[in-house]
């Protein structure tokens, strides 16, 4: 059979009713500006670590805000904290602060 390179994605629905949002709320309370994110992806496009790995800052913090904490800590540990994302963010979000906050709050996941 010819492989066309297409696959079927796994379902990616996030069930907010079933997810425990306590940690997400705690994170938002400490960094309310994160809600200003328009998910443009500039952070991920400039990311030093993202240039070398699959690390995707936008994806991780978006999932965390929806209560999907699995693996978030390990992913955030790929960040080099260089600060390029912060300079390109059109919403002026303190992205480096977000990385450190997520790591602090989700260390046990």
């Amino acid at each position, binding site marked *: 059979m010819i492989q066309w390179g297409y696959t079927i994605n796994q379902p990616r629905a996030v069930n907010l009713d079933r997810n425990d949002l306590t940690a997400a709320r705690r994170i938002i309370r400490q960094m309310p*500006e994160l809600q200003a994110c328009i998910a443009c992806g500039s952070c991920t496009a400039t990311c*030093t670590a993202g240039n*070398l790995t699959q690390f995707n800052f936008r994806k991780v913090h978006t999932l965390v805000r929806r209560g999907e904490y699995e693996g978030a800590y390990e992913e955030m*540990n790929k960040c080099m*904290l260089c*600060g*390029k994302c912060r*300079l390109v963010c059109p919403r*002026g979000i303190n992205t480096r602060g977000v990385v450190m906050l997520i790591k602090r709050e989700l260390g046990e996941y």
Partner: protein
Amino acid sequence: MNFYDGFIIPFVVGCAVLFTVVLYKYVRWFVRLPAADKRLVRRNFFSMQTLRGIGEVFSECLLHRRIFRVNPLLGYMHMSLAFGWFLLIVVGWIETIAYLGGRLVPIHGHVFFKYFSTSLPHHPVWGIDFSSVMDALLLFVLSGVLLAWFKRLRSRAMGLRRTTKHTLGDRVALSALWFVFPLRLLAESLTSAIFHNGGFLTGAIGDALAAAMPLRTLSTLESSAWWLYSCALGVFFVSMPFSRYMHIFTEVPLIFLRRWGIRSGEKPKSFDHFQLEACSRCGICIDPCQLQRDAGFNNVQSVYFIRDRRYNMLRPEVADNCLMCGRCEQRCPVGLDLNTLRLNSRSRLHDTPSDRRYDYTAGIDRSSGTGKTGYFAGCMTLLSPKILRAMERIFNASGEEVWWADREGGVCCGRPLKLAGETNAATRMMRYNEELFRRHGITTLVTSCPICLRVFREDYRLEGIEVLHHSEYILRLAKAGRLQIEPGEELFTYHDPCELGRGCGIYEEPRELIRCAGKLVEPAETREEALCCGSSVANTALNDLGQQRIARSVGASLGETGADAIVTACPLCKKAIARGTDRPVYDLAEVVERHLA
């Protein structure tokens, strides 16, 4: 002569508590010093450093020379209190010996000599009128107390726009200290009113008192005054080791330990205690802090950081909210390593074991070129393509063959992570880059980012590789005749990046290059006093608004020079300042590139 009276008890108890606690602290801290530090003490104990230390103790702990440089009146206030009190003790001691010879006198006998010596004949000994000398010294100290009261009302007149907000313990100690000397004056005057043994000051006040009231009132008042004086001393001594006044003693061991080569490091250690408790909370670090004057934070300055850490109540919001620009460290009269202390506090808060972090960098090498001169752009330069292009043109124009370490993406230098407190993980990135540089056999490493430059110079093991900032490198090319820079008419002003200026001590090279390309005008706060752009990677707590406020204030201060364009030598400063000014902001490399022949 009898040296006992009930009123000495508060003083003696205070003294006992003071010396017990201070001794306990010092012995504990010293015993806990790492073995390497103790070796340094043993090696350098009998050296010139010890003698120089004695000189420094005299000039800093007593005369407060460095505070005079901040403001002469403020310096005088500190000197009159410290040196004046010291002389009162020393001359008081000599006075006792002069009167009583080698006889053993208990400590309170020296302090309350005026009270106990009423039976002695009142005349000069060894040709010295001790009563008047002691009065002059007391007047000297009292002038300091007066200034301290005045500073409460009008701190601006003494060079401080803002003063420290004190804790309750500090207030108790402060009030006791303020009362000690006026009470001493009162007590000695009353004694001299009865026994006529005062000098020019206490004698005159005493005579006036004697004329105003009967002897019975005088003797009641005298006894109460000595009690109050002793209580004030006692309260001050008991509160001293637990308040800011612990600095009075702690600055002495700190000076010697520092002279012997002991430094704080990126991890907390016992030596830090000497630094923390040597802070007098004078508040000189508050005014230079841009977080205070532009962004409105009033509880994160070094004085509050040190206080919070000393009393174990340091929160991440305080530890992380600092630009580490070094403006306060530069001004600190005690010479504390404020940035290093902040750094190792962060490492205690945020550092995690990281054996496997950044394993994904293994085997990655996207460098290109074959030259012996390496160029490391750094993350921030990669985000500023104009600087990168300018550097490329400069390399081409000079005919330099370059090895591009990270043009196609590389690993961060590790300094931002280190400054955030994750020292272990930062080391792993540093080892990666070291290995990359070695593999390509470069002999010179040029970087256009002062953040990278500092970490290369301070933390990388790059023996055999010369690390240069692009300002140094380009100037070297120009001096060797490999670059022709044509002078222009444009008026530039230069912003010193913190990491380059205060961090690496590079002030002259960028200026020399700018003068090759145009005219240079200095802003009001420049060189060691230069402002921070506000976007420092060291601050992970400041939000965008705060960064913009600082950038606007820096932009305004640079704009006041009337320059056509602002030049800096750091890609991060360039981006930050551009947000706060309407003038063009260039990196040094861009300026040079535009003036290439």
